């Protein structure tokens, strides 16, 4: 395989994307009709891309495992979407958004991509407003903004605590319009099982109809994968139950290298774990940190008393409270980026100051804000979040401070892509959270929605067209071709193998065990010994899985347990790669914290001399991966220590 070519256009940073668009190859309308594009995933990136490419006249087939495209997990994003509109006149600009994103990502993102992201951010807002997305408004009717972690300006557009939902419903409506017009064909309750390569180029996928259990072959001149992140490798995460890595993992095995797999984001404001039966963690929007103050007791005995239910939070005197974020980071206070906030909370809990039954929680207190702004204002801003908290925890957060703890949330890592979002497999594109993308080692709040829509609406329609311009002479291929048959057979064999194990332990039991290993050793803080142990444990668990997993039901029918088993099998391989990547990266940056590499104050100690690169992993064989490096060159900005003090 050739070395990595990120295909960054020449020219100054500000002119690269314009230059690309001005010089890209186009496909004429009569040829567009003859070209098929497969898109997997109907989240922001997938549905936006499908709608846009459909509008352009291409033939699109879109796949999702849910019963409707509207259910993709982008819908759960709460907080908002960033754009450099500078409506509040607080000094924002495209450059600043770009700079904050690069800095927030701890200088591990590709400069040109991030600049393009900031550049198109404003158009995304225009597009969404035109679609009827009900963003929050000022009384005068103009759009309202709020501030978010990692930024000193208010640049976040939002629709209550349901921004992701509204943006997704926007792109879903655009997609629905194309489905009606016949340019896009929808395959719901279908899961991508493998990508099909013909002469080294991606030419289709094998999908499983989840209702009948039958495998199907689908041809496309290009394949776009937008299947989201792999946070469920931790079992407990804020991801949806069905979120998985299988699509990008199968691509990885077919030659699409994996970028920065160890970069995962642990979100600081989630509802703490409270029982073995727990199936998922609920995120509370980061926007809560705008008005909530995070603290733990100053004295260990108070923390202990709270853990045993002998002391209430409100009974702890003000002078005995440690507002640790405000103490450690006076400049940003409670609004430090997510990785910093999460780690600080973990540090306090590990030191014995954690509260709640398990001792794995910190307080998020609105008492001061309620006193300052009144209960009504807080209710207007966060009413739905407070209600959600009360429903889950059965405690009134207007009276008692909330308890929160970090949880796995987002994966910055993903399939390696070049500037065109093309993977190392020609004709195979990855978008949204599925690619390793624009967030470096840590994603800022309200940037995921921005990236998903940027990729879907404003990047892929150009870059996929540029690729397809070279494919106009390729006629539609029959799916009877040997390559399709082989790919289908391989999938069939794998599924049959899974069904044939007939072991004793359920899929969930294995998944939970994997999650525990990942959280313990490849979670918020990592070290060499732990990572080595994790690799060993995962390997063992994998062997056991393939010997002892128990899947009821049959192959050719609706079988959720089989679906889960297939996904968990891939998570088990991915988990190992994550550990390898974390082990390789002998530095701490963003969401990747290696205990060996920290300052005296416990902050990240980055190593720009040796690790200022994207780690792109190539699959060799089971458990064997080869590292390739894409050096990150910063032409426009000065690489600095990330300081939020």
């Amino acid at each position: 395989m050739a070395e990595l070519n990120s295909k960054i256009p020449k020219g100054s940073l500000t002119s690269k994307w314009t230059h690309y668009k001005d010089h890209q190859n186009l496909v004429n309308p009569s040829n567009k009709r003859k070209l098929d594009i497969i898109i997997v995933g109907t989240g922001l990136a997938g549905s936006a891309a499908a709608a846009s490419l459909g509008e352009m006249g291409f033939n699109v087939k879109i796949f999702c495992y849910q019963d409707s495209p509207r259910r993709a997990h982008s819908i759960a994003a709460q907080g908002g979407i960033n754009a450099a509109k500078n409506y509040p006149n607080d000094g924002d600009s495209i450059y600043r958004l770009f700079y904050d994103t690069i800095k927030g990502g701890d200088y591990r993102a590709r400069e040109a991509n991030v600049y393009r992201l900031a550049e198109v951010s404003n158009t995304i807002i225009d597009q969404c407003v035109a679609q009827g997305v009900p963003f929050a408004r000022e009384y005068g009717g103009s759009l309202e903004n709020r501030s978010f972690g990692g930024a000193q300006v208010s640049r976040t557009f939002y629709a209550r605590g349901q921004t992701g939902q509204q943006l997704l419903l926007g792109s879903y409506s655009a997609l629905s319009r194309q489905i009606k017009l016949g340019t896009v064909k929808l395959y719901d309750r279908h899961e991508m099982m493998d990508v099909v390569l013909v002469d080294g180029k991606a030419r289709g996928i094998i999908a499983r109809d989840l209702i009948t259990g039958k495998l199907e072959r689908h041809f496309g001149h290009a394949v776009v994968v937008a299947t989201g992140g792999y946070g469920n490798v931790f079992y407990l995460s804020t991801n949806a139950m069905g979120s998985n890595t299988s699509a990008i993992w199968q691509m990885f095995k077919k030659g699409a290298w994996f970028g920065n797999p160890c970069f995962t984001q642990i979100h600081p404001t989630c509802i703490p774990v409270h029982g073995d039966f727990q199936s998922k963690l609920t995120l509370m929007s980061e926007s809560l940190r705008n008005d909530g103050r995070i603290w733990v007791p100053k004295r260990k005995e108070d923390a202990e008393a709270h853990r045993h239910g002998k002391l209430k939070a409100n009974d702890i005197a003000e002078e005995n409270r440690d507002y640790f974020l405000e103490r450690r980071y006076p400049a940003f206070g409670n609004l430090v980026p997510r990785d910093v906030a999460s780690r600080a909370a973990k540090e306090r809990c590990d030191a014995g100051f954690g509260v709640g039954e398990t001792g794995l929680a910190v307080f998020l207190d609105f008492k001061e804000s309620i006193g300052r702004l009144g209960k009504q204002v807080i209710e207007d801003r966060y009413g739905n979040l407070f209600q959600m908290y009360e429903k889950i925890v059965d405690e009134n957060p207007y009276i008692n401070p909330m308890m929160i703890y970090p949880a796995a949330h987002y994966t910055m890592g993903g399939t390696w892509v070049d500037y065109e979002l093309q993977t190392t497999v020609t004709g195979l594109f990855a978008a949204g959270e599925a690619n390793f993308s624009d967030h470096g080692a840590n994603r800022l709040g309200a940037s995921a929605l921005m990236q998903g829509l940027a990729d879907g609406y404003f990047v892929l329609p150009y870059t996929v067209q540029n690729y397809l311009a070279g494919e106009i002479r390729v006629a539609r291929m029959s799916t009877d071709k040997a390559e399709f048959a082989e790919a289908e057979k391989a999938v069939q064999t794998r599924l049959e193998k899974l069904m044939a194990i007939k072991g004793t332990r359920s899929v969930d039991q294995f998944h939970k065990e994997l999650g525990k290993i990942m959280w313990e050793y490849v979670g918020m803080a990592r070290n060499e010994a732990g990572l080595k142990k994790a690799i060993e444990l995962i390997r063992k668990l994998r062997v056991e899985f393939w010997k002892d997993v128990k899947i009821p039901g049959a192959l050719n029918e609706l079988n959720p347990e089989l679906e889960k088993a297939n996904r968990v099998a891939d998570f088990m391989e991915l988990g190992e790669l994550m550990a390898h990547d974390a082990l390789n990266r002998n530095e701490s940056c963003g969401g990747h914290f290696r205990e060996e590499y920290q300052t005296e104050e416990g902050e990240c100690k980055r190593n720009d001399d040796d690790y200022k690169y994207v780690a792109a992993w190539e699959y060799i064989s089971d458990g064997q991966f080869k590292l390739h490096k894409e050096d990150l060159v910063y032409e426009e900005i000065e690489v600095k220590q990330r300081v939020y003090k």
Partner: protein
Amino acid sequence: MKLTLKIWRQKDAKSTGKFVTYSIDNISPNCSFLEMLDILNEQLIAKNEEPVVFDHDCREGICGMCSLYINGRPHGPDDAVTACQLHMRKFKDGDTIVIEPWRAKPFPVIKDLMVDRSAFDKIIQEGGYISVNTGGAAEANNILVGKENSELAMDAASCIGCGACVAACKNASAMLFVSAKVSQFALLPQGQIEAKQRVMRMVKKMDELGFGNCTNTYACEAECPKLISRSNIARMNREFMCAKVI
């Protein structure tokens, strides 16, 4: 907690189903309803029985995938939540819980408690959008929207498309779902241009698919996990009348 569960089991769309009774013990009151079903399924797998199939995904009340009719109420006894946000503390030790799939002609059962709700997608495809191509949008602040209307539009837009309104309605009417989408766009200046076409096409599709008629019992509003108001139905009626008459 010890519970008796009476669950609808149906092998596939063509089979006839029946209720099967299970008993389950040691359920924590802090457990969510779907986690309780997870525990049941774990036990069924251990006993070499087929687990109960039900739709679920985000488990935080926003994707709209979970769809269980619990003891005579869609999403169960708690108000303003989806089944995945329902907690076992809402039940009492020793309770019998009857779990049924959504029942409506346009929502055929696929298996056990899983139903096909693609009818909703088909309604949206008829006009639940503003026809704007990517890249063709004007500067966002050129379109001003009064805060009041914007808030009302957001209220309507918060629909998660779960289908509880249809499941609750004695007529299996989809008026609340359709009117929420019609209302969202009717309240925004962007939506005006296609307003007439939109409401007529969406209502026509809704009727074609076999949903029932609204008889103003407001069960939909009472069961909507997102508290979508019936005023949206009135607004859609208004829009429809204007579209027909004016």
